[in-house]
């Protein structure tokens, strides 16, 4: 059987016994499934939702971290550092957009100013030696639109911004192309040991497997308990963000960081690869693991912070507000461990760096599983990683590409005007190995409807293409002729 036709359906057959099932199709789980499928193993990637990347991996600040501010000596510090390089290389090969913007950490009071040398030294202990302490003049030279009162800063030239959606989708697509069976709409509700195999009882039926990897993010502690452990508890820590319109992008051409505190990394301003500017996130511990709504308090807090950080930014239009839930745990490090007896590996507690570290976590997990007895025989016949459609502003997009439009007019038919998404790209998303299951998924794959009008102009048309699954990409935008409604009459109003 060739590698590509092993199983490319998005909702695969679960009747066989798998060698490994990875629970959670976020960035971490997708990276693990992809890594394991590089070996002679039958692997399934399973998720409760109807699409990959629909959990925390879709709603973060999308920074590719150098790990300069991690806690030295931790597993997180090491895997973030490794992940930075692994993901950079992978992005190069697959076309995940990255912008090497660099970051500037800004001190706003004496205490923060005094903390800078310590941060520089910490960065060095994390293996990152390119930070530099700069005075206020240099801070304002680098970020002329910064609010008043900055006393100094620390430059982190290699912090970058990346597309988290494409990262997740590339890893999952790669996994599927390597033969991984994707099992969606299956929430694991119980597990059962049955003669050398584990049966996962899911909302979509039983799935039998020899090994299980738990990469269930916010649900990872619950699943861990199903395997008889009691070692950590996930607290959903909500982070709300405001996304400013692309017209704001000239205000912030690099990441502007606050001095971190024990509560987290604090509120930052960051460019996005789509050309927007982010303000956020908040940090608020919740109990509800599904509450990704935004709050009045959170928005007010961000506006207050933003007013100080960059007053001009607040004059611009907000084109999106969203919230993500960090899987914070009562451990200060990642909780990654293998249980040879239960043929089970946990990748939990990955709260605020999992986008960066995902591929390195996958390497580490594979290593642990191998030591615990999973036989890892590398495959010779691996397909090339997929080339992903580009969503980044810094790279050519179809609407700008005369040659591509000449070859296929669908790339010249702009459907979403604000984000300049073409009918060709929407069609391609539906023809891809992991097509979108709904509008949200389409938005993550194409940027359609993510712009400033939020559907005022294109919402209906995107909805129509959604229903036809991108077919008719070159058809008329309006399927029916407008009917005339109401007659004409001379009007007395005409004279006013």
């Amino acid at each position, binding site marked *: 059987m060739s590698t590509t036709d092993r199983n490319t359906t998005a909702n695969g057959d679960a009747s066989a016994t798998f060698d490994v099932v990875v629970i959670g199709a976020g960035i971490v789980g997708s990276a693990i499934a992809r890594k394991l499928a590089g070996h002679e193993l039958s692997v399934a990637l399973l998720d409760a939702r109807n699409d990959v990347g629909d959990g925390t991996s879709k709603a973060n600040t999308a920074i590719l971290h150098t790990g300069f501010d991690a806690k030295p000596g931790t597993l997180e510090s090491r895997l973030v550092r490794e992940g930075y390089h692994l993901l950079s290389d992978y992005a190069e090969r697959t076309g995940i957009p990255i912008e090497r913007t660099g970051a500037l950490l800004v001190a706003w009071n004496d205490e923060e100013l005094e903390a800078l040398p310590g941060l520089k030294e910490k960065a060095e202990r994390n293996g990152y030696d390119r930070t530099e302490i700069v005075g206020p003049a240099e801070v304002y030279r680098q970020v002329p639109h910064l609010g008043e009162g900055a006393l100094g800063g620390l430059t982190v030239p290699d912090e970058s911004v990346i597309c988290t959606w494409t990262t997740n989708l590339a890893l999952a697509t790669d996994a599927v192309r390597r033969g991984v069976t994707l099992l969606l709409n299956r929430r694991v509700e119980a597990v059962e040991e049955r003669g050398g195999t584990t049966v996962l009882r899911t909302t979509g039926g039983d799935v039998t497997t020899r090994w299980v990897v738990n990469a269930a993010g916010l649900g990872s502690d619950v699943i861990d308990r199903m395997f008889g452990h009691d070692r950590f508890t996930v607290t959903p820590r909500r982070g709300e963000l405001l996304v400013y319109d692309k017209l704001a992008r000239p205000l912030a051409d690099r990441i502007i960081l606050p001095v971190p505190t024990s509560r987290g990394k604090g509120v930052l301003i960051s460019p996005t690869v789509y050309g927007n500017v982010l303000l956020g996130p908040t940090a608020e511990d919740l109990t509800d693991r599904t509450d990704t709504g*935004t709050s009045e308090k959170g928005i007010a807090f961000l506006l207050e912070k933003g007013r100080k950080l960059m007053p001009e930014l607040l004059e611009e239009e907000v084109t999106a507000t969203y919230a993500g839930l960090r899987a914070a745990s009562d451990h200060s490090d990642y909780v990654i461990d293998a249980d040879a007896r239960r043929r089970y590996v946990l990748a939990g507690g990955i709260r605020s760096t999992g986008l960066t570290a995902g591929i390195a976590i996958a390497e580490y997990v594979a290593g642990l599983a191998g030591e615990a007895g999973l036989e890892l025989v590398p495959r010779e016949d691996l397909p090339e990683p997929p080339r992903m459609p580009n969503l980044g502003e810094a790279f050519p997009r179809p609407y700008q590409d005369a040659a591509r439009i000449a070859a296929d*007019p669908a790339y010249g038919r702009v459907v979403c005007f604000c984000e300049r998404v*073409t009918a060709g790209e929407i069609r391609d998303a539906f023809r891809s190995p992991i097509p979108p299951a709904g509008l949200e998924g389409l938005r993550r794959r194409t940027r359609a409807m993510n712009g400033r009008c939020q*559907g005022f*102009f294109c919402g209906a048309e995107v909805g129509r293409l959604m229903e036809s699954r991108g077919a008719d990409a070159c058809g008329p935008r309006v399927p029916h002729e407008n009917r005339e409604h*109401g007659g*004409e009459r*001379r009007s007395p109003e005409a004279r006013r």
Partner: protein
Amino acid sequence: MSTDTDTTPASAGVTTLTPAVVIVGAGPSGLSAARELAPRVGGEVLVLDRESTAGGIPRHSDHPGYGIRDMRRFMSGPAYARRLVEQARAAGATIRTNATVTGWAGERTLEVTTPQGRLRVEAGAVVLATGARERPRPGRLIPGDRGRGVYTTGHLQNIVHLQHGKVGRRAVIAGAELVSWSAALTLREAGCATVLMTTEYPRPDSYALFNIGGRAFFRPRIATRTRVSRIIGKPDLRAVEIENLDTGARRIVECDTLVLTGDWIPDHELARAAGITLDPGTKGPLVDSAFRTDRPGVFAVGNLLHPVDTADIAAIDGARAARSVLAWLNGGSTPDGQVRLVAEAPFRWVTPEVIRRGDPAPARRRLLLWSDRFIPFPRVVLRQDGKVVARKRLWWPASPGRVFRVPSIMLTSVNPQGGPVSIGVED
């Protein structure tokens, strides 16, 4: 991004067009400009629109109330749009649809994407007629769930009138201004009941045209001094929380559809990308009464300048601007000296923003303003250099949610060499 000089390399496969005039936007304003220019200009008059059908917003605003002041008719939006398109075509203008202007490649050179290829349009004059849109939910910072069923009027009408799609059964409309009534009509046609309209103002602005037109007038409940404070329900909208701005009292209103109306913002992306100065009030390009922006040979008309007025006014802008465009093409120069007109509370903005002696009077001899307060018979005051230069009581109200018109004759005693002129009210 903006370039003042032509720096874009002529990449392969790009077709260059060289019309005398390019008009961006085939709405009422752009089409009316095209109709007037085409017979009078030597070269081509090219209208570009990103939609697949020309006509602008009236295409999907399927109710009567169009064409009153320009065509002296009372017609439906789609019929009005078709008539404008026919007129522009008959006058000799070229209209290209599915043509999205994506940026600038020079002073008056545009980059365009079409299914037929990438275009580079080098024109003698550019008219921006890109219209305005309503602020969607994120722009209004309404917190809560990301439930499906939240629309702007534009989105709603696209679904109902152009795609003949479905919305819910119980709607709340945020806003009680002209456009909100248009949304209510659309909902009714789609079989969705409007259970409540909210307005932050002390009184709603009823759409007089529906009375005059003799149409069945319906009155949904209106909550004044009220805002939508939270959206509840996911994946589908279940309810909204509303807040009384005076008492702070909040309550939950069940609904599966929320239409966010009004709260206009001009589609000024191209103007900004060109580095054209915008007016902080309208957020559209700053123009004089000849519709000149501060980039030579680039003009702006329609709701891009006054978010948002009725279509007939936008159309009249376009027709008036044609004269200025012609003058520019014929080598005419802009008169020296200018006076800046600035809005004072309760006015949010005034347009045109720049007055020059020697320029034509504003369209219909009216200054257009937006008021944040209802005033039955406002006494309008113009001040310059610390002195009142004009004062006049008007016999029509200033009302939030619709444009307020002030006769430009009030400008007669403005000193063309003086400082900025403020326009406000005396109670």
